[in-house]
């Protein structure tokens, strides 16, 4: 084209980023890459390999080793060997290495950006301006956490060896999110990058060498899903961190059930993008560009579900269509490209399939004309930006994660309806809310089931702000203080096995006097068990001293229903919750003698010990009443003009399975933090000593505890807990009992990926320091980060 032609058509022309340095690097590895284990490059023992290619043109980039059994084992061994020394290096010692990694990454930023674009297909603008700078920032931020570890995380140690499996959509950034906090906290890692996109991880391994990171601290094994499975199943891995699909997350959750491996899962989403009629619509349109046409829509927190208020729906759609016409799909290496290549043809097929189904189910499809001056290599794997309107809430494109540049549009009438629609999803990763009325936005944000809420912005990330999901989007947080806790374990005293006591045969006489048949406690009322059966409660001396209801599936169902209806508890003020807990403590105090006698009679402890247990139970209620209005969130200052509000929110409905040991104190120690933080509880008491729970509900009844906040179902604890763990309406399960029971809870929780806190059969000293504390509060809450940019002055 001549300059005159361009003067007339004002086209952009090509602006390719150079690839010389990366080409050179790849040429240096033309014989293939090894695995990075114990600070060395080694070939795969199985001698299997696979190739990585550029999705924008189909050309092969490199040959990679497929790590097998022996390789994964060698990597885990290397990590195990390196871990104690790495941890004992201390916070400052580790901080220096993390700082060095950050600096090195920054120095090689352009090389990483180009390589990422070649391997993944995402536009160079994004790798250059977003992926790499955020990865660098993550290492800097976590150099800081390493430095502060001793003072900020006292009584915590590293977990040990961490297996990390990351996805292909943000290869280096996800590596940073995984590796930085793990090694900052003193863990060592074995990381498996996604098979489509391993190259930046391998380049990062070279940086580890350059930084002189001790051998074995970071190990990188390449391979497909089978390598990942080896890592998941490896017996000597203490923790697994996975980012990827909900489907695979569920498998990992089920497979690791009962292994004692700590788990964080960052999974899929169908995040709502809510536009109210008082929003800056032009701003919202740009938000959508960042939400769904960023990284080809291959973003777990992509705002893929547009919920728009009916009155502005047409105006917004017109603006969206106009904007879509200026999106440039093409060569990812071109600096003018907005939408690059889809990572692989398998993925492209999946997008096409889902869109086709959506259209068959009634959606109207709209795609813009291709930009005349944007290059679009035919050999590449491209998919145009796509708008789907007339989408019913039952349409597959309103429900399933597409993981492509496809926006589904639904409308709403009122704020209330917007929230209901937004939460009408199995996922809960992120949401964004657009309104110029901050009263409205800040009212809506806490009501959304999402780990991150962006007000008048979207897809903002920062290392200081935790990121992670609610519901089937996973659990655990990455980034910030909460992210560090995922890689730390509280120091525990000496460990003993939890003893589940057998319920003895009746050997003595039934106690004389009035028959005592305790009912279940559901929805604030005493309820007969659905089964119509009762179980005897036997004293320490073998005398039957009463009966309790034999709870069943249906009673659990009823209890969960009652807990669901008690949703107001989660919104009531912290002061109010504290008052109720104090009141429970007060009323328990009035009946201290009665509970003491009950403990003596049931468990056979001496009176002094029983008194101590009752007193400590009262103290514990005070403790969590005290915390109720003090377990505050945080206000982060991310690098934008505004704040990110980290709110500690309740999980929702929590199932609690109590141990036989210290039956009153353990029960109170678990129940109190759960309700103090605003959860509603379905509690299954000690199977051996259930009368303490049924006595307790008489205390609850006199303490103004709203109906449904605490529900008590007696009976066969482990099978009842399994029903709770399996229940889709239950958000978390705490369990303290046998190792087998723990495993069953974890396995059953895979269904809706609820959060678990189980003891894996290890007893807790309820009378000691580990019987209460912040750990309980953390387990009873989840952090939601609400980003609120502001400014209205020029």
């Amino acid at each position, binding site marked *: 084209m001549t*300059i*005159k032609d361009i003067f007339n058509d*004002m086209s*952009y*022309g090509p*602006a390719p980023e150079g690839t010389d340095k990366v080409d050179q690097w790849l040429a240096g590895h033309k014989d293939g890459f090894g695995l990075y284990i114990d600070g060395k490059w080694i070939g795969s023992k199985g001698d299997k390999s696979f190739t990585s290619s550029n999705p924008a043109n189909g050309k092969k980039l490199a040959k990679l080793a497929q790590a097998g059994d022996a390789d994964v084992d060698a990597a885990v061994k290397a990590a195990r060997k390196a871990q104690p020394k790495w941890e004992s290096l201390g916070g400052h010692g580790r901080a220096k290495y993390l700082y060095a990694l950050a600096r090195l990454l920054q120095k090689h930023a352009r090389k990483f950006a180009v390589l990422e674009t070649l391997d993944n297909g995402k536009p160079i603008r994004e790798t250059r301006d977003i992926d790499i700078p955020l990865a660098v920032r993550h290492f800097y931020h976590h150099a800081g956490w390493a430095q502060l570890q001793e003072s900020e995380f006292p009584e915590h140690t590293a977990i040990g060896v961490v297996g990390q499996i990351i996805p292909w959509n943000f290869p280096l950034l996800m590596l940073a999110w995984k590796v930085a906090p793990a090694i900052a906290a003193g863990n060592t890692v074995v990381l498996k990058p996604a098979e489509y996109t391993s190259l930046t991880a391998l380049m990062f391994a070279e940086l580890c060498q350059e930084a002189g990171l001790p051998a074995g601290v970071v190990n990188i094994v390449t391979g497909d899903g089978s390598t990942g499975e080896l890592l998941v199943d490896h017996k000597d891995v203490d923790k697994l961190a996975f980012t990827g699909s909900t489907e695979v997350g569920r498998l990992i959750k089920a497979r690791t059930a009962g292994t004692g491996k700590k788990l964080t899962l960052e999974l899929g989403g169908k995040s709502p993008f809510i536009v109210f009629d008082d929003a800056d619509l032009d701003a919202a349109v740009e938000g959508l560009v960042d939400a769904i046409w960023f990284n080809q829509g291959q973003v777990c927190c992509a705002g893929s579900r547009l919920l728009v208020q009916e009155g502005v729906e047409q105006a917004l759609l017109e603006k969206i269509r106009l904007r879509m016409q200026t999106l440039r799909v093409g060569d990812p290496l071109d600096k003018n490209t907005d939408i690059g290549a889809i990572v692989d043809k398998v993925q492209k097929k999946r997008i096409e399939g889902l869109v086709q189904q959506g259209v068959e189910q009634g959606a109207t499809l709209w795609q813009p004309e291709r930009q005349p001056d944007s290059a679009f290599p035919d050999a590449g794997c491209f998919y145009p930006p796509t708008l789907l309107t007339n989408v019913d809430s039952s349409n597959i494109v309103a429900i399933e994660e597409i993981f492509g540049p496809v926006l589904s549009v639904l409308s709403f009438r009122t704020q209330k309806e917007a929230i209901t629609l937004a939460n009408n999803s199995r996922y809960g990763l992120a949401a964004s809310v657009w309104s110029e009325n901050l009263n409205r936005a800040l009212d809506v944000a806490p009501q959304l089931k999402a780990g991150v809420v962006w007000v008048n912005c979207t897809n903002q990330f920062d290392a200081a702000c935790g990121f992670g999901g609610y519901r089937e989007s996973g659990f655990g947080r990455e980034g910030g203080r909460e992210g560090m806790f995922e890689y730390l374990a509280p120091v525990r005293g000496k460990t003993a096995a939890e003893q589940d006591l057998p319920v003895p045969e009746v050997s003595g006489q039934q106690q004389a006097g009035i028959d005592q048949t305790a009912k279940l406690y559901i929805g604030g009322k005493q309820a007969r068990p659905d089964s119509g059966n009762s179980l005897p409660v036997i004293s320490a001396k073998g005398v039957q001293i009463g009966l309790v209801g034999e709870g069943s599936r249906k009673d659990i169902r009823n209890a969960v229903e009652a807990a669901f209806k008690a949703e107001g508890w989660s919104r009531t003020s912290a002061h109010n919750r504290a008052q109720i807990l104090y009141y429970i403590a007060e009323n328990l105090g009035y009946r201290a003698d009665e509970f003491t006698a009950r403990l003596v009679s049931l468990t056979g402890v001496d009176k002094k010990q029983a008194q101590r247990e009752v007193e400590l139970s009262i103290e514990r209620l005070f403790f969590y009443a005290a915390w109720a209005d003090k377990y505050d969130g945080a206000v982060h200052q991310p690098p934008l*003009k505004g704040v990110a509000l980290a709110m500690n929110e309740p999980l929702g409905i929590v199932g609690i399975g109590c141990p036989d040991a210290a039956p009153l104190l353990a029960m109170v120690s678990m129940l109190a933090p759960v309700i103090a933080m605003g959860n509603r509880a379905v509690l299954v008491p000690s199977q051996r000593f259930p009368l303490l729970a049924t006595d307790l509900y008489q205390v609850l009844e006199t303490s103004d505890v709203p109906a449904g906040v605490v529900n008590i179902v007696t009976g066969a604890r482990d099978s009842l807990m399994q029903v709770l763990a399996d229940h889709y309406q239950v958000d978390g399960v705490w369990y303290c009992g046998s190792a087998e029971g723990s495993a069953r809870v974890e396995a059953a929780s895979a269904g809706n990926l609820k959060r678990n806190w189980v003891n894996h059969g290890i007893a807790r000293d309820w009378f000691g320091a580990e019987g209460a504390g912040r750990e309980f509060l953390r387990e009873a809450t989840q952090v939601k980060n609400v980003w609120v940019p*502001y400014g*209205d002055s*020029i």
Partner: protein
Amino acid sequence: MDLLNPGTGFRPEWLEDLHVNQSAVERRVATLKNRRSLKKEWQAAWLLKAISCIDLTTLSGDDTPGKVRRLCGKARNPVRADILEDLGVADMALTTGAVCVYHSMVKTAVDALAGTGIPVAAVSTGFPACMSPMELRLKEIEASVADGATEIDIVITRAYVLTGNWQALYDEVLAYRKACGKAHMKAIISTGQLATLNNVAMASMVCMMAGSDFIKTSTGMEAVNATLEVSLVMIRMIRRYHELTGYKVGFKPAGGISTAKDSLNYLVLIKEELGHDWLNPEMFRFGASSLLGDIERQLEHHVTGSYSAAHRHPLG
């Protein structure tokens, strides 16, 4: 030239649903700069376009006829002939979009540009503060039009914006409009003194309702003049007004745009947000005095591969 915008009645309801989120505007601007890149011939062609859109300006108390004639010479031949030759555009008869002066220099400029088709713009209405009596402001317009100015850059009473007196603003601009007759009117809203982007949006809208052919950011005399942020808000209002009325209003950022790179950022902003119809001097102008010098140096660099120097290009 026909007028671009006959205007509408005062439509306060068009102001009611305007919402500008400043933070989002800032993000759009920040990323836009990195979203588009112009290399080689494309960069050269876009810089030539920028030149064609410049209102080459001198607004100084010490302007003399000699200085203005020299400026007009530069407007006629903004780039050294040999550079244009090398770029292959010697036959394009490239000129700047206009020359912009105070009233007392209008005649000089009109004479100096006779036969070139380059319009003369006059800043007017008590520029830059708009604090003189209304009848004098109207007379000033009439005098400049009488002297041959075909474009009048008016200033508005900022107090009307800051107190939300939109009717008064409308009336004022409408009166200017009438005084301009057949001359194009560019309404300078002085964004740097309007406090918020929402005010910028509403002032833009009111000025268009009152028949402005162009809306313009600044006088160049405010502490903060044209920025990409206020420009984004103004051109979104132009788009909105076009949707509402079918009339296309032009845009002129002015003040502080002094580098070739700046000018490309503005052109990209226009292309992305308004489209091709606005990428020409009929619909878009830069109010600038030193911008041309930097563009000339960039163009010479494009041709020779060596970085240029100011003294190699004729003074404007």
